């Protein structure tokens, strides 16, 4: 059963689900009270004491039996007496650490608060992102060489690097900071600096997306929206593309892609934290991407 404390607040899912959660909480509380009463009774205390004595992993009685076993086997097998103190200590003291059973599978997490926050973030930044009078936006980007070259003509780019993005972006906060984070699905973004750190790859740098996750969190804490762009080339590999990019895409406020197949698959991702996936005709056109993001 899910820990009541971890359940979403009523209202974050639906009213009916909220009522069910309340009813469930009441049942759990009643059961907990009954268990407390049982535990504090004399019979309950006696039972707990006996169970502690007999506990096969940690209780004193099995430990004493183990000590007897060590003495018996040492005498019978003529084992080295030198090993006896170690064996006795082990029989008396080990194991002090017992693994608990794995918890039951967790129900899929409710990401609706994160999704709503992503929508709000994009809405708040809409005016800044679309700009007026052709003004240049300041964008933190991770992209391949071609995109960087094309985008730098229309906007002010900060090509962030894994080793110093925090220092660089914090240094620019005095000048108003960045307007958005735009990351494209490319295997070696920013001239190879982000290689093995965005798409799925069997390497510690990429598996838990520590660098990318931290960068996105940094942006969200400052109300800077994050956009992931999956172009035609990245989407062309079909199910392999999804396996490569789906986990990274799930972290962003919005995914923009030119592939309808990829869009519908990502929309169904159970851990999608962003507001959704939107189609774009040309994923290489940064202005089209920004326009779609705030549409």
């Amino acid at each position, binding site marked *: 059963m899910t820990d009541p404390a971890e359940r979403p607040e009523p209202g974050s899912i639906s009213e009916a689900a909220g009522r069910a959660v309340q009813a469930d909480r009441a049942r759990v509380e009643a059961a907990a009270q009954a268990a407390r009463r049982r535990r504090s009774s004399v019979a309950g205390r006696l039972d707990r004491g006996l169970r502690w004595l007999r506990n096969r992993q940690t209780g004193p009685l099995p430990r004493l039996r183990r000590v007897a076993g060590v003495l018996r*086997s040492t005498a019978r097998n003529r084992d080295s007496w030198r090993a006896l103190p*170690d064996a006795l200590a082990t029989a008396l003291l080990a194991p002090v650490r017992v693994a608990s059973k794995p918890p039951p599978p967790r129900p899929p997490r409710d990401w609706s608060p994160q999704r709503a926050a992503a929508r709000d973030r994009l809405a708040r930044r809409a005016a800044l992102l679309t700009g007026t009078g052709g003004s240049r936006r300041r964008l933190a980007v991770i992209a391949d060489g071609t995109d960087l070259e094309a985008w730098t003509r229309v906007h002010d780019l900060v090509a962030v690097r894994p080793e110093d993005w925090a220092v660089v972006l914090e240094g620019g906060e005095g000048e108003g900071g960045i307007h958005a984070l735009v990351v494209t699905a490319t295997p070696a973004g920013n001239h190879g*600096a982000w290689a093995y750190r965005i798409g799925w790859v*069997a390497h510690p740098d990429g598996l838990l997306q520590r660098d990318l996750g931290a960068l996105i969190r940094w942006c969200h804490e400052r109300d800077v929206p994050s956009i992931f762009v999956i172009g035609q080339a990245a989407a062309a590999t079909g199910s392999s593309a999804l396996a490569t990019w789906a986990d990274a895409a799930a972290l962003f406020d919005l995914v923009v892609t030119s592939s309808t197949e990829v869009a519908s698959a990502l929309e169904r991702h159970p851990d999608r934290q962003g507001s959704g996936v939107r189609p774009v005709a040309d994923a290489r056109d940064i202005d089209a991407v920004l326009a779609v993001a705030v549409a």
Partner: protein
Amino acid sequence: MTRRRVCLYSPADLNLVSGSAIWVQSVAETFHAGENVEIVLPLRSPERRGLITDQIRRLPRVTLVDPRRQRRFVPPTGLYAAEALDLIEKLDREEPFDAIVLRSFPYCIVAIERPAIRDRLWSTYILEPERDITNPAHVAELIAIAEVSRYVVVQSEEMRALFEAVVPAGRGKTIILPPAVPAPGTEGIPESLPPPARRLFYAGKFHPFYPVPRMIDFLEELRGDYPDLEFHAIGDQIFRPPGGETWAEDLERRLTSTEGVVWHGAVPRDDVIRLLGAGGIALSLWDYGHGSTMNDLVVSTKLLDYCLAGVPVVLNRTAAQATILGDDYPLFVTTADEALPLIRRLLSDEALYRSAAARCRAAADAFAYPRAWSGLAPYLEERPDAAAHLAARPKLAGAERRIGVPLTADVTRVPEAILSAFRDARALVDDIALVVGIAAPPGSPDPAPGRDPAAALRVGLPDDLGRVVSLRTITDPWNWWRTLGIALAPDGAPIDQQSLDLGRASGVGVATDAESLVSALVTANRGWTS
């Protein structure tokens, strides 16, 4: 050659046929492939059936130990962790083991408290899909195991990457022991592939994670077009999910009453391969609604058995399975429902059937017992090249165009000799990147994201090279070299020799100037990477 004595213990009940029980047989056979290895295998439960133990008994250097040596009346659930470890300690006192291969997290967490055996502990498969690796308490326990164990054993390169990401203490002591199979042509396994046949196969335990009811649906649907189609189900371990009482009953009813279903019950592994050898289509489908996606990194024993038999397998695309069969294997699915059209195609397209079957058989070769043993031998035999063996890991795609420079911890700028050699090479070979690493003492924590102290070296970089040079503190040299194809170490440069040696062991070519760098790039790009 010195004789080696290995204790192998798994909490699997060998009276039941399941992937975990087959794994024990597979690992016993793998160690037995070493000519001087003696294996002692304490059982968790007394023998009631010889389905697996009889197969193990054929191996002359394997000794099965009855759990009643530890406890006169063993309960149906078998020995508890503490009792099993008591038995292992007792056997160790009689004659010491060189390695104690202990499977599963709950046993290893108990075993690290035992000073008498922990220095020889090979903690095996402790990253369990059922446990939450984002839980700090669990991660702390994994770290404790990794710090104390002689080695941590995982089953695939993908699992090693995940373990080393979650548990930095495991870096440099995590080794790979995949499940293994006999080599084709040995132990009665024919070298030729079986002919196409109208049979579907499933072998393994019955658990909602493996959607067997859906496979029976496929059979019923396909029998309209192929009335002689059969579904052969092998195994007798039926999981009874809490709150899902009817699932097991419904499954049993369908297995016993559906026309075309042949339920063989529990069958020894050799007989499974013999049954598969009659030809057909094997199904290895997963339902992620009932299991963790960490299973994507697992090498499935049943997949290897299917491959060894030389039948085409319709299976989920996962990282580990794509590595085994190749990314372009034609029978991968994303969901179980996608399997039906593929099965239909296989039944009508003999060329596809034969090409997929050949692909599967070829994949099994890499998991033959002698190959798996050769991966373990350096560690068990404590050979001097064990450290080099740990560093020799497959390179990542694209590594061949990345050049690594491991510098000593005290450098304050990237030496000009390195930049000049890289600049000259770049003039001849476009699209290469330079990764400058600063050595850190072993066990150093990873730098905070976006705040790597190595970035301080950027100040002295020339404008023309700044954008193609990455800077990084090397806290994990084993995996750092997986991303690099060539090392650049000009004479006189402050190179960290220990890191460079690991690089050499990982298979990188070492260049000392622009000329040798270009030459190494040409060699590296001839396609040695995966």
